[in-house]
């Protein structure tokens, strides 16, 4: 059993928890993920690590409720336990293996969308701890959906917040901000890391390809075991089929087949379920991602 030491709601339907998992906390790195399971008959849910405290032996996770399993997780409070919590899974972000001096010479842009802000945070924090200032764009659907703004501000070189509806900071999609920075403010970037809903990553990747900025994206597809065993998380990258759990979760954004990935994400969403969500959420329907504005 894995004790929840902190549980708070960051925004509507978005929750943050600290979980005691010393083995994971000891060996995890930015970019990796965990699998968590609530209840004996619970589903195994993969979540990218948001933060870790090696001394306290805790891992921070952030998740959005999108169905029965995540609702069940959200109902847990500090002092409660998860039945299972395993990791770290997947490969760490590639930059942690790079020479720090080389890395310091690079201009790096992070683009976070919705709940994808959580996995971007440990990467930006890692950069900050290694004395590297990076630009960070955080996009949210509305002001109320914006998460981790203060935390991000503390570790980012420059932070650019944007909301789809203009209810806070800038108005517009993250791609608008990238265009503005590059075209109007004379910024240049050697690499871009974009994490958020698939549809956001797709459009960021299309734009950065045009702008000639190598781009890394992090995928969170359907998976069961997370160790390469089930093959549910297969994704086409370039001409190859990769397993996101062991070959990823981070891939070259210019090579990922996002359209296929978006279709595969639908496997266990029934037509009825989608229709119901649309009816309940009305105009605010966003497919559970907080930022895409579509039925992703």
């Amino acid at each position, binding site marked *: 059993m894995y004790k929840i030491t902190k549980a708070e709601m960051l925004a509507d339907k978005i929750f943050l928890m600290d979980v005691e998992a010393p*083995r994971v906390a000891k060996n995890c790195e930015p970019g990796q993920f965990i699998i968590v399971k609530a209840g004996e008959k619970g589903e195994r849910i993969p979540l990218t690590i948001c933060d870790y405290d090696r001394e306290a032996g805790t891992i921070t996770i952030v998740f959005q409720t999108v169905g029965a399993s995540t609702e069940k997780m959200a109902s847990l409070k500090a002092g409660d336990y998860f*039945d*299972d919590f*395993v990791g770290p899974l997947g490969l760490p972000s590639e930059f942690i293996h790079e020479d720090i001096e080389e890395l310091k010479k690079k201009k790096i842009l992070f683009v976070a969308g919705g709940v994808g802000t959580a996995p971007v945070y440990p990467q930006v924090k890692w950069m900050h701890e290694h004395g590297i200032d990076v630009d960070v764009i955080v996009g949210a659907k509305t002001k109320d959906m914006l998460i981790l703004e203060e935390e991000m501000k503390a570790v980012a070189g420059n932070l650019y917040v944007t909301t789809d509806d203009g209810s806070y900071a800038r108005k517009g999609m993250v791609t608008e901000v990238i265009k503005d920075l590059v075209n109007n403010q004379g910024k240049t970037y050697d690499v871009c890391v974009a994490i958020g809903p698939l549809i956001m990553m797709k459009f960021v990747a299309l734009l950065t390809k045009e702008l000639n900025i190598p781009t890394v994206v992090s995928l969170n597809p359907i998976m069961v075991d997370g160790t390469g065993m089930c093959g549910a998380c297969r994704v086409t990258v370039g001409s190859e*089929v990769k397993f996101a759990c*062991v070959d990823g979760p981070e891939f070259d954004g210019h090579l990922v087949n996002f359209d296929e990935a978006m279709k595969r994400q639908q496997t266990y969403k029934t037509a009825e379920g989608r229709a119901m969500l649309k009816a309940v959420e009305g105009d605010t329907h966003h497919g559970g991602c907080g930022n895409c504005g579509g039925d992703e």
Partner: protein
Amino acid sequence: MDILKKVPVREQDAKVRAKNFEEVCLGYNLEEAMEEAKRCLNCKNAKCIKGCPVSIDIPAFIQEVAAGNIEEAAKIIAESSCLPAVCGRVCPQESQCEGVCIRGIKGEPVSIGKLERFVADWSREHNIVPEKPEKTNGIKVAVIGSGPSGLACAGDLAKKGYEVTIFEALHEAGGVLVYGIPEFRLPKETVVKTEIDNVIKLGVKIETNVIIGKSITIDELFEEGFKAVFIGSGAGLPKFMGIPGENANGVFSANEYLTRNNLMKAFETDSDTPIYRGKKVAVVGGGNVAMDAARTALRLGAEVHIVYRRSQDELPARVEEVHHAIQEGVIFDLLTNPVEILVSEDGWVKGMKCVKMGLGEPDASGRRRPMEIPGSEFEMELDAVIMSLGTSPNPLISSTTEGLEVNKWKCIVADEEFGKTSKEGVFAGGDAVTGAATVILAMGAGRAGAKGIDEYLSKK
């Protein structure tokens, strides 16, 4: 009774069982078991023992069954095997102990598997548990993986007094016994859990949710005070065909399909894990796993086709499994090979393009080589495809352990007799070494590893 024939075993009716997940074979009762046991000739030079990968003293336990001394029979089996209720159900006896049974030269061999199962089930029902060694020797050994090889290795080492911890990557112990083999062949709660509990009763600790190579490395295990490590991590990576359309929604690996159903219990209404219940499902492949996937899909309500490129004679699955699948209504499309998955506009499987195959000369495997018949292409309408083409070992451990030699198939190199690898203090066995094989071969390798570890640590 006809002495040349096995005492028939009771089974659930095929029509009934095709709609439930209850066990197919009901096993012998005491009377039937004693009657069957009397067919054993108690050979002096018993070939069956040599046919058994874990060398159970088969004639000895059968003599006890014939005399009605079931507890005594259980003790004899326990000397060699910690999973008799499992092995009695899933071992390919026809090619092992029963395959060499002298009784089988004229007539049918003794039903050794069913007798083993009877003894194990009887022991469980009568709460016969293995005895824990009085004290341990204080030497810590780590076992990676709680499948058949890991459990066999841990059980043997615990009996010798070692302090054994098994590390399991999933949230439940049992490996393939839990995620792979379906409930209707191997009940989880009664059979698998009880036998794992028996291993725990020998003093073995099991820590779940630990992925060696990720949560902790083998070198770190040594730093934690473990003096030897046995790798029994299995063969877990599913193979796909590499044909167009294979990433469509509704194409699953048998591993995924079976894990959802067996480990995550997706067939039960109170499970949170979803499974896709197709209406018309093709399972590609002809091994035991393909049969398991096909019979699972059938029970979930689908019309199921096994698509296999050779003929029935070459099916790698056990005859009993094929027989059961046919009885239950699985349709066999033999000498058929998929060339493309047909995909609908919204990304779902809508069918499969296949070609008819003919058989040529025997190939390296000794089986006749399948060859496409030109112009024989046809389409099947389907809404799900399950790929059951075998698995390869997971590189998670080999890629994070310096000095551990692997072969060109990424299998860990280990000697057969003692499971010794290229790294000091590290032993390995089971599918991680051989590639996908059987439960009992993995157990045999686990026992060999235990022997190797004991010898290595005794010399230190």
